[in-house]
């Protein structure tokens, strides 16, 4: 069965921008994150992304702008000979009551259906409590990084106290590949 790591985008791969001023130019990877994805790929992992983009529902940025950000990320990855196997996101607001908005597990189930993976063996790396919640509900393995909203999450949510914490994505990948 294929091994996979699921990543949240903003706060894990890229820096968090103020939601109402998210732009393609402002999309900026956290140092080491692109290399980290590339290392995961070389070690034979599938890498997918599961993010929520409430800013689309709120009209802060368009779906098209989001695609351009994804293109930018794919270009940066391809320079290092890597790629991302799937990009999944929820464009809805909280009032939509959709099944894909984290902490609901819809995106993770969708990923599990599309790829032949065992969610219980799959880390979901996030920086927010909604990532932890989605991972728990989907029976995946929640992991927190301190980047993005990570420090805030660690400081404010008692339900995250037992989630493993890494400094950033690069740190998580180093540890994962070492323990293999």
């Amino acid at each position, binding site marked *: 069965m294929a091994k996979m790591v699921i990543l949240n985008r903003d706060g894990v791969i890229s820096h968090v921008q103020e939601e109402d001023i998210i732009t393609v130019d402002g999309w900026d990877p956290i140092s080491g994150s692109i290399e980290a994805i590339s290392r995961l790929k070389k070690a034979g992992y599938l890498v997918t992304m599961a993010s929520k983009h409430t800013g689309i529902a709120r009209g802060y940025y368009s779906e098209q702008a989001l695609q351009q950000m994804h293109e930018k990320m794919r270009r940066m990855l391809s320079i290092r000979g890597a790629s991302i196997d799937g990009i999944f996101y929820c464009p809805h607001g909280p*009032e939509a009551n959709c099944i894909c908005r984290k902490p609901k597990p819809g995106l993770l189930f969708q990923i599990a259906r599309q790829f032949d993976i065992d969610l219980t063996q799959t880390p979901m790396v996030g920086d927010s409590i909604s990532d932890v919640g989605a991972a728990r509900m989907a029976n995946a393995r929640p992991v927190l990084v301190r980047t993005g909203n990570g420090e805030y999450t660690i400081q404010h949510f008692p339900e995250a106290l037992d989630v493993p914490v890494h400094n950033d994505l690069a740190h998580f990948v180093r540890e994962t590949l070492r323990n293999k």
Partner: protein
Amino acid sequence: MVNPLYRLWLAIRSTLFWTFFLPFVLLCATLLSLSFFTPLWFRMGLIKVWIVCSLASLHLFCGLKYTVEGKENIPENGFIVMSKHSSTWETIAIQLFFRPMVWVVKRELTWIPFFGWALKAVNAIALDRGTGRKAITQLIKESQRHMDQGRILMLFPEGTRVLPKQVKPFKLGGAIVSQRTGYAVVPIAHNAGEFWPRHSWIKWPGTIRVVIGPPIEPSDKKPEEIIAEVGDWISSECERISDKKQLQRIGVLPLSAQE
């Protein structure tokens, strides 16, 4: 109405409560405002201890208990809690029923020694109510950031403690936040004000009832419609759980209404 001797007895019990409660609040608030560098479990534990001890001492000294209904209505995501405000009691107790909350308070409260420092330590959003539109913009921006992180926004739409049977309009601010951010409103009704009314030295023995209502979704409603729905639910529920005998004791309902 109430036997003066009994009233004196209640006043003595309330005095005993204050002699324990006041130093205890000062201690906890000081610890809390000094504890910003401590790990989360310590701060959460401290708040829990503070609430549980406060409520236990109310039970012990004043014979004041409480029950909670509707815990199954609490959503998992971020949301906005709008509670009836009639007593100091709910400001102590509410945090016990939910995950850590972000409180929306008037700026003046953060100036109070000890108590205000503790509010700052738990990241309350301090509103400068005099500034109107600017205050709303600030509130929307900050509360959206917190709720997108999965936290709960806590506010009292009446703005201040309201006496039993008195009516104050529900302020629009929280409903505007709900409509702009898409997060639902969870209304809370309770009758704490009948047992521990504003400015009352005596805390009456009895059982406070707290009801957590089903979430009110903003959908495509206007803020006015959202707040009307919240207000209607809270008012009718408060009417339903109101303790008529207690209202007679505190002289809000005339005695003749008895039997």
